[in-house]
């Protein structure tokens, strides 16, 4: 690993100035669980690490009953998953922040870093899309807001312009009778990158029998995380049944355009896109209703 310079920055303005000055020779550092490994393994070459953790907004995790949840770009996963607000209102976020890495990684790794690394398989993205998250970005031209599903351009590529960086995420207050879930498929039970990930959220009628709104997003089945609005649309106004779930899952499956690589094949990924969509929907529905579905072998939501 080549020697690199390090500078901590204390305000959004300072970060913007330093990043604009050094262009692509500088990179923001949050938890560093991707950046440091990429530098060490020679996959990336920069001259300057800009540590954004000293910026208060970047480390802020707060909830406002009107504006919703603010997650600073550098807030580590463990703070998110231990937040009572997150546990109460943002269940899919809890799913992803407890399965990214192990305990040590969760102590450092941030959602901002995960999103900016822009892996198509990023575990934080499908659930953030399900929760209708928006990205708040600062740069030399000022600040702007981008829906998460519009943030990605390709593997490792985002809409961030030179000098811009991610300040944090805003997640709206979930409506009543809301449920969400994130599931990923990995060959082992730990230490893996998603073969396919699926995030789903639903808003049910007060009696819990009809879907009023739904959002479905997939990971690792396209060059970017994939929001599938038509899958959610297909559920709107539908009764909560296995048939309507299967229809949405089929649409998600059809929308997937994966590749074959060492982590999975096209056929496997398309198939899993459907399976995981259906399972994530069932969990989201259970959570919206406050119920638990257990199968004949005693397994929750069809999986161990």
């Amino acid at each position, binding site marked *: 690993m080549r020697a690199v310079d390090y500078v901590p920055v204390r305000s959004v303005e300072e970060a913007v100035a330093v990043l604009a000055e050094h262009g692509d020779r500088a990179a923001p550092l949050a938890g560093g669980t991707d950046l440091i490994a990429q530098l060490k393994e020679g996959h990336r070459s920069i001259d300057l690490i800009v540590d954004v953790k000293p910026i208060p907004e970047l480390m802020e995790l707060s909830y406002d009953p009107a504006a919703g949840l603010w997650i600073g770009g550098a807030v580590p996963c463990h703070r998110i998953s231990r937040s009572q607000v997150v546990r109460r209102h943002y269940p899919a976020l809890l799913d992803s922040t407890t399965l990214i890495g192990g305990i040590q990684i969760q102590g450092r790794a941030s959602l901002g870093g995960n999103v900016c690394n822009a892996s198509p398989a990023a575990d934080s993205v499908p659930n953030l899309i399900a929760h209708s998250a928006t990205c708040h970005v600062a740069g030399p031209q000022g600040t702007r807001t981008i829906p998460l599903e519009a943030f990605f351009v390709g593997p490792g590529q985002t809409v961030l312009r030179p000098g811009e960086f991610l300040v944090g995420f805003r997640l709206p207050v979930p409506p009543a009778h809301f449920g969400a879930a994130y599931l990923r498929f990995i*060959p*082992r039970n*730990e230490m893996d990158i998603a073969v396919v990930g699926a995030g789903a959220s639903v808003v049910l009628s007060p009696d819990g029998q009809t879907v009023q709104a739904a959002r479905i997003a997939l990971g690792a089945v396209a060059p970017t995380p994939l929001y599938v609005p038509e899958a959610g649309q297909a559920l709107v106004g539908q009764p909560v049944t296995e048939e309507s779930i299967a229809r949405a899952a089929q649409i998600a499956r059809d929308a997937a355009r994966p590749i074959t690589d060492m982590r999975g094949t096209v056929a496997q990924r398309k198939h899993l896109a459907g399976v995981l969509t259906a399972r994530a929907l069932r969990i989201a529905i259970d959570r919206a209703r406050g119920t638990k579905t257990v199968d004949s072998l005693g397994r929750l939501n069809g999986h161990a």
Partner: protein
Amino acid sequence: MGANPKLDPIRGEGSGNGSRPQPSYKVIGTRPIRPDGVDKVTGRALYGADVRFPDLLHGKVLRSPHARARIRSIDTSQAEALPGVKAVVTGADLPTAEDRFEDLGEGGINLRYLSENVLAHGRVLYHGHPVAAVAAVSPHIAEEALSLIQVDYEVLPPVMTLEEAMAEDAPILLEELRTDEMGERGNRPTNVAAHFRYELGNVEEGFAQADLVVEREFRTQTVHQGYIEPQMATALYDQDGQITIWTSTQGSFSVRSQVAEILQIPVSRIRVVPMEIGGGFGGKITVYLEPVAVLLSRKAGYRPVKLVMSRAEVLMATGPTSGSRIRMKMGATRDGRIVAAEAELVYEAGAFPGSPVGSGAVVLLAPYNIPNVRIDGYDVVVNRPRASAYRAPGGTNAAFASESVVDELARKLGLDPLEFRLKNGAKEGDRMANGLPHPKIGYLETVEAIRNSEHYNAPLEGRGRGRGRGVASGYWGNWGGKSSATAVLNADGTVTLNEASTDIGGTRASIAMQFAESLGIPYEKVKIRVVDTDCVSYNDVTGGSRTTFGTGLAAYELGQKMKAAMIQRLADIWGVSPEEVVYEEMVFSAGENRVTFDEAAKLIERRSTPVMVEAEVYGKKYGPAFSTQCVDVEVDVETGKVTILRYTIAQDAGKAIHPAYVEGQMQGGVAQGVGWALNEEYVYDREGHLLNASLLDYRMPTALDLPMIETLIVEVPNPGHPYGVRGVGEVNIVPPAAALANAIYDAIGVRMTELPMNPARLLEAILAKQAQESTQPA
């Protein structure tokens, strides 16, 4: 053929409560704390990477980015000119090695190829093949220097698979290679290094008697041992020509002889200091870095040089064991007798000859008494790293094929798979495929232990509806080998035992316990050390499951000799004949003379000649091991993922010296077998680049992927050892792949014939079966 003693398997749950030593033993069968335990749990133990010196240089190895290429030239001048670089070496620095076969214990290698594997000589044969090495004042400078070495490659098309290697027009990897065709040297260039055949009876006649024949082809992928500690070596070539090597190895004497042969230096000038070892499983027998470190140390002006591999280097260039293709055909009569078996085993050797196809062929049918057998084995070179030993080398591949077919035969005959095994199982005197008769063995006893187990008799809810149960058996021949050790009596009544078997599985404890039992003293009085190659005579590697047996024999002998020496000294002091001295319950007495063991030690030091004894053994009466295993799985038919619900092993240990470490070996073997069966494999692209050289994508099981593995220790003593010891280290990796395949079939009716049975492959098979069933007329 003696009657089997009544079996009373020790039930162990790893809790330490299951131990029931036989009344005649005081130490053997108990579960004391291991001598190296405290240092290991506190982090105090010194591993190879902990070696440090004030003037230490750091080395790095340049590796081939190509799977197959000719090296036109190597220019190291820019690297040598980089400030901080002290030495650069290439294959040109190695003497021409002899074209001679060297036995390494668990497999062997031609010395010329061993040398070529250490540093390439004009050709590279796999992605990661070492091409040059640098020593510098820091690892960062060494790394930078690597990027300044210019290698001009003529890239050649790689040969990655057995099919490509054996094709008529296949590119030839090693121009000089000729097939060893059942002992005859072939006359044309080839990638098939060897073909052998085992034959018993008459296979054609055997199949003619069969009412049912099952034939299938099986495939397994290249897998790695996955030891957690990467290879490393530190060497000091001193100004006086003496060489010291600190390394992590299964055999310090083997390192010494390999380095001596490769560098053509007399063994007496080389001292190998074995550091603590973080796993080996057969992969830490062949040398990789040691000769390079020695060359660098000399060239750098006699300064110590340390080389440490990264995980990627470990996966790219060390270890793996062979991928394979096995065709297995077996025939049985309607009443359940296996009458004939025919098999063809084709194993990848990697870049140089020497796959474990030979031991695979022995393992294949060893649990059965089959009158008519023909087995053909092929050793085939491909552009992958050279295969090295891995726990019961070749056995897992073979048993995956044979035990799957045995399961299918039993099912089609409507027989319980364990009853079928009892009906056909091998006993003492039955001949194996290689013509050798089994010595006293405990195979049937392991089958009975599973048949009588709580697990096998417990109902499995959902069986046949996504859940299933499978069984499989396995054999490993074990090994004896050579050991030497010394023991010193201390004045305080303790004994210092010096041995040289590097401890990868609790052998310090198992050796010290046998010594304590032999001398009749408590285990706590024995201070055991693993010493370097200058301290005792030759020792074979810790491999072949031999150490508790072989070095244990030496320990037994040391105990007997020390007892005799103490009796002799006391007889002299007391003025009686040695025959008059009685030793019982740690008390020596002759007439009115009476001293405790501790008093005797003090008395001897004060008034007689010091006591030091030595033992040298060549253990040839080692006893084979068998393991029978039962596993329950759940298959998620929507994703193809397998969850292991329960796992039970019954193994014949002969005699479990330290039952907790025997259980550890049993569980460890199964853990590795499960990884091999379900997820582990080398993934190469078409150009022969290894794509998954990390533990993220080379998927060994994590703690969350394995259940508690239950163990049943069966004890059918090996008559060739005073305490009945057989080896326990290897056999348990043999059955898991087949046991899991059989359980998956039981769960969902899908017969998997390719490893790993990962979710992608299993899902494909499930979907194919569903498609087939939906098109069949109702």
